């Protein structure tokens, strides 16, 4: 009866898991990220995969793949390069978990076939089971320690379902050890075993065995006469050698469960009464099945996606040229795969060169892991649909676009990614998507109107009166007369400005010079500068600021004006801040 229940539950979980995997893997051919992915059909993407795989298998690239298989997938070389502690933790978890899975969970399929006479109660399996469980535990503990140490004030990308899955994993381990501990201490289990293997309820035989198992093997009898007669134990030892020892090692070799059993001892009567062995088994088994069924929908899908990603990217020998090298169909699939392969480890966030800006703008969406999540949301259409409750504006999308365009493409995230994602390609595709959705980079949309037209729109727009308070914090220099009142209009800034110099030879010259921007500020006409080409084409080389004989922070003011323009002109343009 119970076996049938467990078997059915296992079958259902397996079916759910397979269906989930199919759904998730199919996303690699469905999800579209980047303007170049829009016109690629499903069949083209499948064909690209087959073609790519065929080309790899038929060429010397196969050695690259094998190399990647060994170094990247098995040894996690990329993780080792950046995070030694996490690499160790991950390795411990993987090793412990895989060995437990093979030896213990799949005993009937694997261990019994490989090792004659396998019994879960025999040495060395009892010891090994504890060892593997302990290895996973140590790994998880190291992971948590590392996570504590890395804690920052910036929000990290974590989903509740992923935390739940980790808790589930812990639950499986804990129930496993408890189940084993319960069996060690339980007199009920003792009697069941003796009935089965000694085949006698004769007190002559049972008493010495009880004496031995109680004094040396941790079974807890509440009706045993104390102190135990040593001769009785010796008799029990002989009986044990014949009846038990052939298929039962000493329980103490379960070096985790045995101490736990000692702790359970006082409660063993109650536990036996309540059939703890049965419900612990159910809890343990059902937790495993639940994990199996939900695996495709949690972070742990990465056990499938990450190796594939590593193999795909590891087989592309020249990362820099990979974007050009692959067809649009292959690029589309690789981006979709990236969404699934990201393990939310946050190493990219820790190395991100615009992380300081994330803090400055209060927009954690600048960080790579967040951007990757936003890419997924955007591809799923959720980002553009999400509207702010208060004014129905596309706040989330605006923030995500801001984050996308503040990225400097320094490439650090790609270089540290432990699963080898080509993140720069993903960011570039994302920017294309934002631009296509009417959210181009500020430097692009600011050119929709001339500086004067922007200033007139600002004047006509009622929003601007609301902006004044935020302006002072966003643009403290240009809001304070003292920062430019020293300007004597000597033109030094203009004379040393390479952007103005270049516009001498260009049809798309700047509309103002730095010195004129300063003069507009002096005249209280800051709005006129916000959409100006000079402000937006400034190369921030700081020549002006270095040379200014009056110490005016010209370049700093230019940067500020841009930040202010994003907010003020962005408001006029219709994508408003919700704050």
């Amino acid at each position, binding site marked *: 009866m119970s076996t049938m229940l467990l078997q059915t539950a296992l079958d259902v979980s397996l079916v759910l898991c397979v269906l989930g995997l199919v759904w998730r893997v199919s996303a690699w051919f469905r999800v579209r990220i980047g303007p170049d992915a829009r016109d690629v059909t499903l069949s083209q993407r499948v064909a690209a995969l087959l073609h790519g795989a065929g080309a790899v298998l038929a060429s010397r690239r196969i050695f690259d793949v094998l190399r990647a298989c060994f170094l990247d997938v098995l040894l996690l070389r990329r993780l080792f390069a950046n995070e030694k502690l996490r690499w160790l933790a991950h390795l411990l978890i993987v090793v412990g978990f895989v060995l437990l899975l093979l030896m213990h969970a799949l005993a009937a399929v694997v261990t019994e076939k490989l090792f004659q006479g396998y019994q879960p109660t025999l040495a060395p399996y009892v010891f090994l089971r504890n060892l593997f469980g302990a290895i996973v535990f140590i790994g998880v503990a190291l992971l948590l320690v590392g996570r504590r140490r890395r804690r920052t004030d910036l929000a990290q990308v974590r989903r509740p379902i992923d935390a739940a899955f980790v808790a589930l994993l812990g639950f499986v381990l804990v129930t496993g050890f408890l189940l084993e501990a319960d069996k060690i201490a339980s007199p009920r289990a003792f009697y069941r075993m003796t009935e089965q293997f000694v085949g006698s309820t004769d007190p002559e035989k049972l008493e010495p065995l009880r004496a031995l198992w109680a004094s040396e093997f941790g079974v807890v009898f509440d009706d045993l006469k104390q102190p135990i007669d040593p001769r009785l134990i010796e008799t029990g030892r002989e009986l044990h050698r014949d009846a038990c020892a052939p298929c039962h090692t000493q329980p103490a070799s379960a070096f985790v469960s045995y101490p736990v059993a000692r702790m359970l001892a006082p409660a063993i009567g109650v536990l036996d009464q309540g059939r703890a062995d049965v419900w612990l088994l159910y809890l343990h088994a059902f937790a495993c099945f639940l994990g199996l069924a939900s695996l495709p929908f949690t972070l742990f899908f990465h056990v499938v996606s990450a190796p594939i990603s590593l193999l795909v990217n590891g087989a592309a020998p020249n990362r820099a040229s990979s974007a050009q090298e692959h067809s649009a169909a292959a690029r589309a699939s690789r981006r979709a795969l990236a969404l699934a392969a990201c393990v939310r480890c946050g190493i990219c966030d820790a190395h991100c060169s615009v992380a300081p800006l994330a803090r400055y703008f209060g927009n954690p969406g600048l960080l790579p892991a967040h951007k990757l999540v936003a890419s997924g949301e955007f591809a799923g259409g959720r980002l553009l649909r999400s509207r702010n409750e208060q004014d129905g504006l596309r706040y989330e999308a605006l923030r995500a676009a801001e984050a996308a365009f503040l990225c400097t493409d320094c490439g650090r995230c790609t270089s540290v990614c432990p699963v080898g994602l080509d993140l720069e390609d993903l960011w570039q595709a994302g920017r294309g998507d934002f631009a296509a959705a009417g959210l181009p980079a500020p430097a692009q949309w600011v050119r929709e109107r001339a500086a004067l037209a922007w200033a007139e729109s600002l004047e006509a727009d009622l929003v601007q009166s609301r902006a004044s308070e935020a302006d002072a914090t966003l643009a403290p220099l240009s809001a304070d007369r003292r920062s430019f009142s020293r300007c004597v209009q*000597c033109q*030094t800034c203009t004379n040393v400005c390479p952007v103005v*110099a270049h*516009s*001498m*030879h260009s049809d798309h010259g700047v509309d103002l010079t730095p010195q004129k921007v300063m003069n507009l500020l002096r005249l209280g006409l800051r709005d006129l500068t916000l959409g100006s080409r000079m402000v937006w084409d400034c190369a921030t080389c700081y020549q002006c600021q270095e040379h200014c*004989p009056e*110490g005016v922070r010209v370049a700093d003011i230019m940067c500020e004006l841009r930040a202010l323009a994003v907010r003020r002109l962005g408001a006029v343009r219709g994508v408003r801040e919700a704050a």
Partner: protein
Amino acid sequence: MTGARRNSFDVAVIGAGMAGMAASLFAAERGLSCIQIGSGGGILFASGLLDLLGVHPVAERCLWRSPYAALAALARDEPLHPLARVDAPSIRAAFATFVTALGAAGLAYAPLGEQNRNVLTAIGTTKTTFGVPRAMVAGADLLDAPDARPPCLLVDFRGLREFSARQIAATLGRSWPGLRHQRIEFPGSGAAPELYAAHLARALETAETRANTIALVQPLLGDARAVGFPAVLGLARAGEVHAAFEAGLGVPVFEIPTMPTSVPGLRLLRALEAAVSTRGVRRRHQASVRALAFDADDATIELDGVPGGERVHARAVVLATGRFTGRGLTADRDAVRESILGLPVEQPSAREGWHQRDFLAPSGHAINRAGLRTDEAWRPLGASGKPAWLRLYAVGSILAHQDWMRSKCGSGLAIATAWAAMEQVARALRGTAAG
């Protein structure tokens, strides 16, 4: 000679204008370790011309052909004038050292003589000066021609609003019949409504632009025996550009300084920065002095504008912070104050005395002679009338009893007093080293 302490120097020069640069240069030349604090941006207002002494007395606007004769007259009439307190051999040595250092840094000057020279200005007037950059000297030679001034072509560029050859020719035409002017389009500037001198200067450092410009001027030469341009002939490689123009046009070529801030100012700043830096002077050009304190043998300077702040120790301090534009002196409603230490400032007793009723009065205003009084060794006096600290010195325009703008003696004042004060610094430091 640097002490064992970190960030410890023989001399700290506060200020990086002409006087601060000269003081740092001379300190380095004397083998003293030196740190210079402050922005050199003020030098951008300079024209590259090095005045020594052109006018004395200012009330009579009397121009002098010989600066040394003028200095002798000044010493007679105004013994308190800082330049009157430096002897002629020292001034000759100071100028020679200064100009040699500039030459080595890529800014060549015509050999210094005993006479002042006249040079053309951007508005067609002439200006009396002493040290003339190599690139401008051909113009001075024309003005000083013993007989009639030879035919000459002035060229300007469409869009360069700060310089008009036509205006210069109109102003000088009566006394210089052979002076012609032409406006040309700067090669490759077709689209630009307005041009800026420094951009032209950089553009002319590429051989192609240079050749195109020369080709445009060549057919306009006519009988001209020299060609004048606005001062845009190169920036970092000005010598090369000027030589190329002379070779290409086959006649002497000279620059006329444009309105400040100008390319010659940029060249001077670059050359001075290079001169002091290559001599090992440490520069804190974005720093300002937050606090300056002295104990018996050591000055401690706290700096602002350096990330995390910085503390500097020096055995001697030279104040070269300038007057009002350099912000060495600040004027409020009641009085003029010295900005860093609050040293007593020689000034009219009340604000009414700052200016004359006639703003353009040739004798100038009392406020233009305000500044620090020093003892014989260039040490500014404290409230008690004694030196404020035993090794605090003041040089340049912050000194009282001079009106350098009207006297045409700005560079001379900076260079000569820096030289004289540094002699005192070296002597004082030698004294302590021996003792």
